[in-house]
Every structure is written in structure tokens, then in C-alpha cells.
């Protein structure tokens, strides 16, 4: 396997991606992707792939999915003009408000889609992993909605830093299992969910929460999340009077970014994914996978990962649990190597500053994950004055309150003035 594209290959693959021809029959986005799973799961993945092929684009499934998105998720989500932020930045800033979707983040688009699919495929129960807890909450809610029992695997570290979401999942009827193995964050939670799936590949449906893992997940999740970019594109044309010069989205596994970017690939919009720069550039201090990683196989897919010279996957650090992951979706690996999307990072501190600025200027408490996209967009706006910017506001920040208590809010007094 070689991750270096030959001359002319980048253009050819990008054209294929834009034409909707990727992944190919083997689940590949150029060199990336594929299906690296234990033999026990091979028949389950083949069934899932056949199920996706049969249902995902069938009218009956699409009708049901679109109806749930409209009447239960609350789509389309708003496009908000960020007036004060625009003034401050010297730009024209528009926000695609996935924080307004039911359960507070884009994760619900994928969760309800896969829950409906699980039902059609005759699953007896559902498992899901979660990092920030948003996918766990979304899966719990979606499973309650379609009537399937749901178990959510969550790293013990994340259980602690995202406590409000743990309680929400339980109230929505899910079982929450704290995973102490490995690094006790998102990667360990995915490993554990895979181990559980292996025990009953026939009865269990695994709702994977990001555009990562073995084929067909990166494809399935992209298709379910593309509603973000499809709506945003139409709303920009209608409400902003034209497409954006640049679009920003945060990237952990990369589901909200691929959802926003995929429908914009053919446009002139510059696409910028923002990873977690953590506390520094050293291995283990960040989760800037695409910026600093190398090709390898992690959790089912050949992609870019953070690893040492021996192929051992490295632990990551980010203030945001949802970006704290050592891999990234294989389609992002392709989009990076074709040059269509650039990937940069924002540090913990920059994200915190951006979060505060958005609260003060627009009255929106955004998620710590999403704050990374704002931080990068602000820097970009400084260097590109007067441009039109679209930011994927992927989730709301209520679930980050336990983390934010460590960074006390300003105490203000207006009466004295």
C-alpha cells in the first residue's frame, strides 16, 4: 500500500470523488479505506454493505429518513449571519447551525439514519461508541425513537469530563459502559464496541458515529451527514447571495466536516478542516492527525494515523473529547492528498478564546470541538480581509460545562456603570 499519489492520480481521484464514484467497490478512496476487520465480523460487514446498497438510496428509506430529519430532528437547521463577529473579523461570517438539531449536534443525522437502517436489517440491539458523548446521546435518542435497546461504550476519561451527557444517555434509555482499557478515550471505546460486536455479529447493529472504520461506514456516515452541506449550499445561495469563499469545519474522525464539505467539493469554495492542536506539536500533545500523522491501519481502515515508528498508535490530547482521536476518516486522507481540502490545527487555548468570543458576540455557546473551527476561521479572516466565510457550527457547548468550570467566566457588573 502506498499513500503517495502518482502524477495525475490526484486530479483523477478528485474527479472521481466529485462524481460520486468513491469509495470504489472495495471500499477504497484511492489508496485509503478498505476493510480490515476480524474474520468473525466479515459476514456481518458483508450483510451491512448489502443492506446499505439495498436500502440507503431506496425511495422508501429516504422518505422515512427525510421525514424523521424534518419532523423529529428539526431540519433544515438555520443558517445564521454572525453580524458582530463579521464586524470584528472584517469578514462576512455565516454559521450552519447544527447545534440547533435535536440533541444538540450534527451527530443525530447519522444516528437516526443508522437506527432506521438497523431496524430494517432486523437488529435485536444496538451498540455505539462515544467520545464527547454527543454521538452516544444521539444514538440513545434515535434508538428510543425506533424502539431498539442501545448500549453506549465510552472511555472512562470521557465519562468523567462529559458527565451531563452520561446522564442524558441513561435517561434516554441507554446502557452506558465505561471503558477503562487502553487510553480510556474514544479509540478505546471503538475497540471495545468492536469486541462486543464480535460476540453477536448477527443480532447486534453497531452505529459507528464518525466517518471512520471499515467499509461501508465511511461511506454510510458521509451519505447520512451530507444533508449539512446540501442545506448549507442552498441557504448560502438564497440567504447570503452566493457561495462562501472558504468553509471551515472541525475534524476529529471527520463526520461533520465530510458532511459539510462533500456537497461543496465541486465549488470554488476553499475547504479547511481544523484539527485539535492540543497543547503543542509533540507526539501525544495533540490530535492533529492529518497535519502530522502517517499512513497506517487503525480500526478497520487504511488512513492517516498518529503512530510511532513501530506502528503503535499514539495517545492524543485535546481539550475537546470529540476531537481526541488518533485516526481520521479515510476520505479526509484522500482529500488531503489530492489537495482539495487543507487541514490545519487550533490549540486548546485558541479554541477556548474562540468559544468565549462567539458567546459574547453572537450569544451562542458552541461546543469545544466546534470552537477549533472558529479559531482557525478567525486567523484566516485576518489574512483574507472582506471574504465570505461559512463555519460548520457542529454542536452546542452545554455538555462542556464541566470542562469550562476550570476556566471561570468573567464576573461582570453592569449596574455600577
Amino acid at each position, binding site marked *: 500500500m502506498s499513500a503517495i499519489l502518482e502524477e495525475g492520480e490526484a486530479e483523477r481521484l478528485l474527479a472521481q470523488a466529485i462524481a460520486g464514484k468513491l469509495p470504489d467497490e472495495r471500499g477504497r478512496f484511492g489508496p485509503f479505506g478498505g476493510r480490515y476487520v476480524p474474520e468473525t465480523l466479515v459476514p456481518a460487514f458483508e450483510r451491512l454493505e448489502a443492506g446499505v446498497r439495498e436500502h440507503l438510496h431506496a425511495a422508501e428509506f429516504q422518505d422515512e429518513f427525510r421525514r424523521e430529519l424534518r419532523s423529529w430532528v428539526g431540519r433544515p437547521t438555520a443558517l445564521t449571519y454572525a453580524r458582530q463577529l463579521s464586524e470584528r473579523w472584517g469578514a462576512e461570517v455565516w454559521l450552519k447551525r447544527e447545534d440547533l438539531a435535536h440533541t444538540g449536534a450534527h451527530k443525530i443525522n447519522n444516528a437516526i439514519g443508522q437506527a432506521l437502517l438497523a431496524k430494517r436489517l432486523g437488529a435485536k440491539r444496538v451498540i455505539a461508541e462515544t467520545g464527547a458523548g454527543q454521538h452516544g446521546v444521539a444514538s440513545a435518542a434515535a434508538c428510543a425513537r425506533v424502539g431498539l435497546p442501545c448500549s453506549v461504550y465510552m472511555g472512562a476519561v470521557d465519562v468523567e469530563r462529559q458527565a451531563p451527557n452520561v446522564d442524558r444517555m441513561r435517561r434516554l434509555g441507554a446502557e452506558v459502559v465505561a471503558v477503562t482499557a487502553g487510553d480510556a478515550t474514544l479509540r478505546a471505546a471503538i475497540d471495545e464496541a468492536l469486541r462486543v460486536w464480535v460476540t453477536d455479529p448477527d443480532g447486534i447493529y453497531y452505529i459507528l458515529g464518525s466517518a471512520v472504520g471499515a467499509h461501508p461506514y465511511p461511506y454510510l456516515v458521509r451519505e447520512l451527514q451530507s444533508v449539512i452541506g446540501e442545506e448549507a449550499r442552498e441557504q448560502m445561495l438564497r440567504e447570503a447571495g452566493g457561495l462562501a469563499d472558504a468553509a471551515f469545519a472541525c475534524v476529529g474522525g471527520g463526520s461533520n466536516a465530510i458532511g459539510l464539505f462533500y456537497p461543496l467539493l465541486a465549488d470554488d469554495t476553499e475547504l479547511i478542516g481544523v484539527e485539535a492542536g492540543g497543547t503543542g506539536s509533540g507526539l501525544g500533545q495533540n490530535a492533529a492527525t492529518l497535519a502530522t500523522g502517517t499512513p497506517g*491501519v487503525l480500526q478497520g481502515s487504511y488512513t492517516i494515523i498518529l503512530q510511532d515508528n513501530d506502528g503503535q498508535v*499514539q495517545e492524543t490530547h485535546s481539550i475537546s473529547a470529540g476531537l481526541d482521536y488518533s485516526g481520521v476518516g479515510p476520505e479526509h486522507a484522500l482529500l488531503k492528498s489530492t489537495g482539495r481540502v487543507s487541514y490545519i490545527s487550533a490549540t486548546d487555548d485558541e479554541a477556548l478564546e474562540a468559544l468565549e468570543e462567539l458567546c459574547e458576540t453572537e450569544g451562542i455557546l458552541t461546543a469545544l470541538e466546534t470552537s477549533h473551527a472558529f479559531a482557525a476561521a478567525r486567523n484566516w479572516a485576518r489574512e483574507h480581509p472582506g471574504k465570505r466565510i461559512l463555519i460548520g457550527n457542529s454542536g452546542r457547548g452545554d455538555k462542556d460545562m464541566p470542562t469550562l468550570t476550570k476556566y471561570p467566566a468573567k464576573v461582570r457588573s453592569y449596574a455600577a456603570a
Partner: protein
Amino acid sequence: MQPHERITAAINDANDGGRTALVPFITAGYPERNTFADTLELVAQAGDVVEVGIPFSDPMADGMTIQRSSHEALKQGVNLAWIFDEIDRIKDRVDAPLVMMSYLNPLLAFGYDRLAARAAETGVCGFIVPDLPFEESGELRAALENQGVGLIQLVTPASPDDRLEKLGQASRGFVYAVTITGITGGDAGLPGGVDGYLERVARLSPLPVCAGFGIRSAADVENVGRYVSGAIVGSALVEVLENDKDPAAFLATLRGNETPS
């Protein structure tokens, strides 16, 4: 004889001697990095084929015991180059053919051609790669076969007959029959229906079949030995080692009432 044929021959020899072949598994460098070579030598005297586990950060097909051993070995700085060097050092004292069990990424990082060459040099005759299904295995298989080193296929109770047949044909050395639908180290014992499954695998496989996952006692070895050629013992042996007990004595108990030939 090609390296992968040594594996098959060792299993056949055991069967010819009236024994079920015993395939002990150890995690390289666990519990102690500095005792790996000695432990391997000791275990190789008791086993017909020895499986050496390469530690990996994300052992997704393994239960708690192998996860623990894997993470601990990594903490002690064990890596594939060091493991090959250690094996190289004692290879003249090890008769049993060795196979390596590794997740794909450490092999990918090492480089497939370098891997195959180093395996051939050190007497490693085969590889078991739990996260590499047949469909993705072409590149590694080709590199190994250049050196006569085998890629051993796993089959499971979830594999339909046509797939069993395909995997049996593709495998080299032996066919690894996973006994349970689950991860390594289960203590629930062998599941009901294992007899029919193992009989089916043995019937459809052109190579000797060794059963693994959940084998902990002489009774388990005897049980699977009725249908297949060998028994793989992993987590139970790793637990013996981490409790500082004698691996040779434990492996001898697995022979049960069999009389050594």
C-alpha cells in the same frame, strides 16, 4: 522444505505420534522483557509449534489478558525488530517452528519485504494477522510467499461453508479455527455446537486445523483433539506466566493422560 511446510510437518508429526499438536502462545516480552528468550525456549520444548504475540496498542480481537500483556510489553519498549533479534539469538536451540501473531499495523510499519526476509532468517515460519481478512491480504501474502513464509488464515463459527473452503485453500501451515464467536480469553468454556463446527472445518480444509480461543485445560485439548489436529493455548498460558508459575508444568498438564511417544 519451505518454512510454512515445517509448520504442517510439526503438526503432522504430533498426530502421527498419537498426540494432539499443542500450540502455546506467549506475548513477546511479557511479563518481563529480559526473560522473553528463556521463556520462548522453554515453551518451545513443550509445544509442537509456538505462537509469538507481537504487542499492539489496539488489540481489538483480544480479551483482557492479552490486552494487558500487550500494553505492558509495549511499556517495556518491546518492538518487532527487538523480537526478531531475540529469536535470532536463540534460534539454534529452538526446534519447534515459530509463528507470529500480529495485528497488521506493526507489520505495515516494519515493511512487508523486510518482514518476510527477517522471518526467513530467524526461523519464523508463518504469520497470523487477526485484522487482515482474506480480501485485503494479497500484498502481505505475496511478500511472505517470496520467502516461503505462510500466512495462516483464521476461520470462525460465523464463516459459511464456501468461505471456509476458500480460506482453507488460501491458508499455509495450518488453518486456525476460532472456536467461539467472540474475543480471546473467554472463560465460559467451549460453546455447544463446537463439535459440528470443528468437524466441518476439518472436512473442508486441505491443511491440518488447529483450534484456538477459550482452551484452558486438558479436557478442552482432548475435546477439540477429537476433530482437529491441534490446540492453541493463549490467555491461559499468559496468565500462568504473569503469576510466575512454571509454563512447562502447565503445558504438561494439558497433555493430560496422553502418553508421550
